[in-house]
């Protein structure tokens, strides 16, 4: 097995493990740590796939910004940071449903992908990506910006002082 293969297996296992851990641990702050690790592991996979720009984006946006935001969220809603999440245990039928979805999805995917393996990993220059983003996807990007703007104002409206 090639080093890339090994790296993929390792990173994949870390990602699944940390995701599960993030949801199952009792301390909310531990959740943040696990989810940050999850984001970093995913970024690693992106690097592995030679999508370095997306990897950096993942690190910056998720592992950095989102994690900090979540942390802040916990801080302002809890009196003590190390408070225990009211454990809800492991609901068996929810787990079954989730597994069912995964299995069905896998079945559909195997139908679609047919198990064929590709030989080459394409890597793209950031310039090309930005040309694509601002070229054919320009309109959509603009729309995304508008969505972000309205979301931002909505968020500010929601949390502004004096609103009861």
């Amino acid at each position, binding site marked *: 097995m090639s080093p890339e293969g090994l790296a993929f297996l390792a990173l994949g296992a870390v990602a699944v493990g940390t995701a599960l851990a993030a949801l199952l641990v009792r301390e909310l702050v531990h959740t943040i740590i696990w989810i940050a690790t999850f984001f970093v592991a995913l970024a690693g996979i992106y690097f592995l796939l030679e999508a370095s720009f997306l990897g950096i984006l993942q690190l910056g946006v998720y592992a950095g910004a989102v994690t900090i935001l979540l942390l802040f969220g916990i801080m302002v809603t809890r009196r003590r940071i190390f408070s225990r999440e009211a454990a809800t245990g492991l609901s068996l039928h929810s787990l079954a*449903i989730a597994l*069912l*979805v995964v299995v*069905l*999805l896998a*079945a*559909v995917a195997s139908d679609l992908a047919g198990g064929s393996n590709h030989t080459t990993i394409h890597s793209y220059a950031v310039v090309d990506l930005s040309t694509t983003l601002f070229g054919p996807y320009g309109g959509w990007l603009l729309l995304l910006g508008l969505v972000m703007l309205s979301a931002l104002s909505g968020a500010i409206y929601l949390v502004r002082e004096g609103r009861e």
Partner: protein
Amino acid sequence: MFDPYNIFDWAFLVPLLPALAFVFVGLLGPRLKRLEYGGWLAVGFGGAAMALGVTLAAEEMLSPGTYTDQQYTWLSLPGNGSGAFPNGFSLVVGTLVDPISALMLIVVTVVGFLVLLYSIGYMHQDRGLPRYYAELSLFLAAMNGLVLSDNLLEFFLFWELVGVCSYFLIGFYYEKPSAASAAKEAFLVTRVGDILFLLGIFVYFSTYATRGAAGGWAANGFPFVQGNAPYLAGAMGGHSTTLTIAGLLILGGAAGKSAQFPLHVWLPDAMEGPTTVSALIHAATMVAAGVYLLAVASLFLGFTPTDQLAIVAIGGFTSFFAATMALVNPDIKRVIAYSTISQLGYMVLAVGAGFAMVGLYHLFTHAFFKALLFLAAGSVIHAVGTQDLFKMGGLGKPMRITGFAFLVGGLSLSGIFPFAGFWSKDDILSSVYGTLATHPLYWPFFLMALVTVFLTAYYIFRAFFLTFSGSAPRDPGLGHAHEGAWVMTGPLLVLSGLAIVAGLLPFAHGFGSLLPGAGIPPNYGSTDLLLSGASLGLAGLGIGLAYYLWGNGRVFALADSSPAQPVRRLLLRRYYMKDAYDAVGTRGVYGLARGADFVERYMIDGTVHGLERAFAGLSDRLRKIESGVVLDYAAFLVSGLLFLLLFLLVIGPWVASNGGL
């Protein structure tokens, strides 16, 4: 075109004058200083209409012919060359004067004027005088319009209008529940006839409009032009069944208006109206319109032999049937009303046997002597305030003119020589007798008519003796009787004169010869002396019996144990026909309506409400799903995803393997 120097072009004024009187009296009447003024206004307009009407009739007699004047296209539809009405059609309202309408014109305007005059005295205490005169004027307008109609549709239009005037006048004393009920009954029963008549018009009309390529009727509706009968028969071309049905439908209409069996029930009840109304509408004019219609139809449209037999049967049977009910009735007006039905039966019989002119002849004489009888009875009722024959008596002395008038009317009705009724009734009997050889099926109806002569003489003189003979009223509670004012006695005397001479008027006997053309049998009313003698004898027998039982203040009472009692009760109950109609009409149809209303409320609307409740319940249950919990929504989301995946995996391939959608 309108020609001001042609008197026939002014015929439209005959209906228009009373119509103007209706408008004036109706609007101004209640505001005049004295209520009679409105009455005199109506009398004035009625007099003018009479003058014009009689002049027109005289002109017609001097120069016989058919004078039409079409003033106004009432409704028109342009033809488009195909389909049901290829030539289109236009319905015209105009006037037509011919011998028979001239005859009717005399009857309507003269009797109308006399009744208007008489009413001044008869109705003078009534608060509703302006209403009375307005309605009576409207009736006269409509009746004159009917007489002068130049086509069937216009005829029907006025036919309905006289019906509604009759409705209002029967219900004149509307505070009396019986009057209101009688008015409704009259309208409804005649309406049944009207419906049949209307369908008859349809049959004639569309048969013509579709087949009458030559224009003529198709373009102009229904002019009563002579000689249409053969044309019609040709146009219907072998459709003798259609022709028969059309004739029967016309008969149905006539039976409703002229109170022939089985639609006769309304006329006796119509006596709830003022007596003057009974004289004008329910004796002389409106009820005769049915006979007039039959006569016109037989002359211009033509009846098949089957139709004729039906008409003869209805007429003959009705004359006898109604006369029997008059035998026992204690109400002076109802006796005369039954007699009217019976006499109308005679006319129908004559028309049915093919002698339209003979029927109209009797219509003419009957109008005068029957109006006379009613007005005389009205005079009596006005004087004593009751209609019950058994309370009256001995009125001959204080009311000489009235008594004389009633006697003249009675003799004329009984057909005693040389009163008017003798000539016309004799004509009917002898002309029908003449057809028996070729139409043996007419025999029973001829015999009924013959027996009716005896019955007629008996019942009218029973009424006469009960009212006028004897020394004093049987009911001492009756007020002091006295003769009315000149406005009442004057018309009585004029009508008495007419009742004596109407049969002899030069144009009356045999006036059919004034109407040349197809449809009129050349020889009618061959005077058979034997038959005349027989009918005179029967009438004399009837008068004698009446005198024996009721004369000189005698009152004949049937023993309680007499076997004739049940018959008497049957006659008093009018053969239970009215009860049967009430049962069907009131209980049957109204019950049906109540049932339908129940279905409406609880089944149709119930279904709607049930649906509403079902949907409300369903939505109540469905909205429980909307718990508001975000997690539940997430669960729905996942279920949706699951379903989608299942679809992709299972259903999609299954559909694909079964040959696609």
